[in-house]
């Protein structure tokens, strides 16, 4: 089947007729990975509004060409939207398998355009009108709310805000794995010192996480010795995450930086294209590496805000508002552009500058996790207090 035919077919299938392949209410083996693109990625150049003349008028130097107009053009996903060509090898296959959906016009009602404020807003996931509690992130609240408590982990050197809260969640940086210098014998001696102390649990858990990682590292090193290791950067990190998440851990968080493209971001090629390519490779690798567990997995890719719709004087873009979230997973109802939408033109911009936010992140994420875990209203209210949840039918 040709790709275009497949897309046509996928597009024609009515949503209601599609079987719910997974996520019977409250499935306990559901897995969630949140990928946070810190810096505000330029969503309009990842999911390209190819039908918008306004896009091509306002981005004379950095627009991704319309499908079919250049060798390295956007790939049509439907009449309105195209995929950045840097994602052809990695994300397009997932989209075609209906394992990937995009939610444009997503984001927060935080209009500060501050990276920090808006990242915090998202990670805390609290009612916008209330005083912030910096010790209560939404993923921590999710962790304590689920009846069958998931094993959560942050793949970062410090615990992200999203995981701060009532329960202790482990964190471990995967970018540079260090072979532990504390050997097996020393581990046993140290664990013995803590056996009858309040810290015994944390100490033992720490060693378990470390040893699990080292097993993965051993496999990696073996692969390296056979010259079989090709992954680098985020892809390598993503493979490591998958090995941990197909096993013990079922709620994960990772952040990927470097999206604050004020200058020379490029179009079909260049700085942003390279970053997207690496990100796409990571997500595709993650999906492969998850194996059968991919069917129970949902990956959400989000960012604090989108960027200015028009390019700036430095062939880059500045801090904006609405962005595009990605939802991927082996069992999702993807292969489509989901959520509230509006034609991309000057009159629909937020403050004549940015994408508007039509799909509020708490409503969106609340709807996702409600379906994934079969949460009732009271449970959802604990995770996202005050949010009116919107089910986009993605899971």
């Amino acid at each position, binding site marked *: 089947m040709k790709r275009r035919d497949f897309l046509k077919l996928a597009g024609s299938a009515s949503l209601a007729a599609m079987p719910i392949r997974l996520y019977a209410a409250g499935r306990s083996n559901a897995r969630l990975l949140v990928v946070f693109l810190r810096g505000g990625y330029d969503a309009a150049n990842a999911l390209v509004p190819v039908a918008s003349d306004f896009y091509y008028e306002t981005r004379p130097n950095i627009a991704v060409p319309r499908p079919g107009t250049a060798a390295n053009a956007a790939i049509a996903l439907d009449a309105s939207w195209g995929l950045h060509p840097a994602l052809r090898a990695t994300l397009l296959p997932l989209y075609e398998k209906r394992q990937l959906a995009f939610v444009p016009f997503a984001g927060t009602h935080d209009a500060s355009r*501050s990276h*920090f404020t808006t990242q*915090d807003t998202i990670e805390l996931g609290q009612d916008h009108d209330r*005083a912030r509690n*910096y*010790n209560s992130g939404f993923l921590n609240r999710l962790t304590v709310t689920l009846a069958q408590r998931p094993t959560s982990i942050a793949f970062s*050197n*410090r*615990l992200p*805000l999203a995981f701060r809260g009532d329960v*202790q*969640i*482990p*964190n*471990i*940086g995967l970018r540079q794995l*260090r072979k*532990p*210098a*504390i050997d097996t014998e*020393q581990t046993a*001696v*140290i664990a*013995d*010192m*803590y*056996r*009858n*102390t309040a*810290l015994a649990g*944390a*100490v*033992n*858990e*720490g*060693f*378990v*996480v*470390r040893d699990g990682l080292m097993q993965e590292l051993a496999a990696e090193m073996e692969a390296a010795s056979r010259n079989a290791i090709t992954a680098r950067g985020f892809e390598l990190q993503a493979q490591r995450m998958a090995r941990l998440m197909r096993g013990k851990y079922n709620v994960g968080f990772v952040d990927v930086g470097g999206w604050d493209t004020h*200058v*020379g971001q490029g179009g079909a090629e260049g700085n942003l294209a390279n970053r997207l390519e690496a990100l796409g490779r990571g997500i595709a690798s993650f999906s492969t590496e998850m194996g059968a567990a991919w069917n129970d997995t949902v990956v959400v890719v989000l960012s604090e805000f989108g960027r200015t719709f028009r390019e700036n004087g*430095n*062939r880059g873009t500045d801090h904006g508002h609405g962005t595009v979230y990605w939802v991927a997973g082996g069992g999702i109802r993807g292969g489509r552009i989901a959520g509230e939408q509006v034609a991309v033109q000057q009159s629909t911009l937020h403050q004549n500058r940015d994408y508007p936010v039509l799909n509020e992140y708490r409503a969106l994420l609340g709807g996702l996790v409600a379906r994934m875990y079969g949460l009732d209203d009271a449970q959802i209210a604990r995770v996202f207090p005050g949010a009116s949840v919107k089910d986009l039918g993605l899971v």
Partner: protein
Amino acid sequence: MGSIPVLGWKAIAAAAAAVVTLAACAASAPETRTAAASNAALPRIQGAQERMHLLNRVTWGATASAAREVEALGSQRYLERQLKPGPAALPPAVQAQIDALTISQRTLAELVREVEQQRRAAVALADPEAQKLARRAYQQELTRLGREAATRSLLRAIYSPNQLEEKMTWFWMNHFNVFQFKANVRAMIGDYEERAIRPHAMGRFRTLLGATARHPAMLRYLDNSLNAANRINENYARELMELHTLGATGGYTQQDVQELARILTGVGTNILGVQRKVRPVRQREYVHQGVFEFNPNRHDYGDKLFLGHAVKGRGLSEVDEALDRLARHPSTARFVSRKLAVYLVADDPPEALVERMAKTFQASDGDIAAVLRTMFGSPEFAASLGHKFKDPVHYVVSAVRLAYGDKPIVNAAPMIGWLNRMGQGLYGRQTPDGYPLTRTGWVSPGQMTTRFEIARVIGSGRANLLKTDARSDAEAIAVPQLSSALSHESVLKTLSPATAKALAQARSPQEWNTYFLSSPEFMNR
């Protein structure tokens, strides 16, 4: 190796010298007498283990020489000295390192102007590739300046005789947190610590508050430099009440936030000394000191109603009036006292203690040393010794003090790295609330595993703290002799059987050190 007799001798010499210095100070400073009069309030702590606990609480970590100092002076005189610190004489080798830093040689205004000019030159480059490289160089320079500040701070934490002042400097840096990786704050953070915080760390809260409110690092970090009449930015106004003074439940309203934001309009920075065209009638109100600027053009001259009081619109002195009110508000006395008690007594300090401290705070018009004195003299303080969990910065600095307290390190980079790795990097807290001061923030599994790894690096003497260049082998690896250092202080007798058993299994001094620095006992202060 075998450096213990040397360590001991040095410590005694240092303690003797310190006593002499103290006597000299006392002779020339009449106020020492009044302090001595209230000596009775300070606790008399005896016994080797108790001394170690006291040191672990009021300093960045007990060392053998500090223990001897307490023994020689008695706990009361020791605390007295810590509460009224004299000049912080650092070991010459440490002082020389600090003197060599760019941040020690340039003023804030110079540093900030230079990096701003570098930034502008970079942005002006037409070629995108050249611009990218120039921007990177700008970022690297900022980072270098931030690391210099961290280096200076760590050297003082390890080697300053004024240990309580250093601990309080960290506390206030955390209380009035700024995040170095926002914009050009890295170029300002050293000055912020050195001029706005440290000089007032043991002084009057109102003075400290005022110093932070005028510092460009704070004004930039919390966006007050963007706060102008009719273009209000509430960020700083809100945090000033919620985090710096009254506390979230301290009794202010959203209306007060907005009014304080209006009061703060026009308070900002002027890096390049740009001439402002101020209306002649307001000309005399314009202020430009260093990088700080009060620009009447941006100030809202209308009258305000703040915390129930009318504030006559008149310019910068409105800010002083507002800060006076905030600093003297009973909620502030309570909020700050409680936070001090969380830092220096217990995660959930007894209400009665907080009340007594708050009373002192109000009675003394926010004299920080007086509040600490009330706290130190309390039975709650004495009872709490040894029961606070060390956060990463306490862990790292106490380990390095124990290992190298008498042998100046020349390379603080590994320490900066360890703190980052454990998520408590200096000036690395992104949010204005500062790092958590309680155990729950720092006992995660990953944290513990990382501590053990760091214990091993320090214990084995392979941390490169004594080398400026990791590749050179000019400096021999110096394995710290913790077991000998501690044997003098009877610490070893007080360890739990499980820890004693572990130490007995050590196959080398390096491993002994690793186990000791990994032990449950070493996790507490």
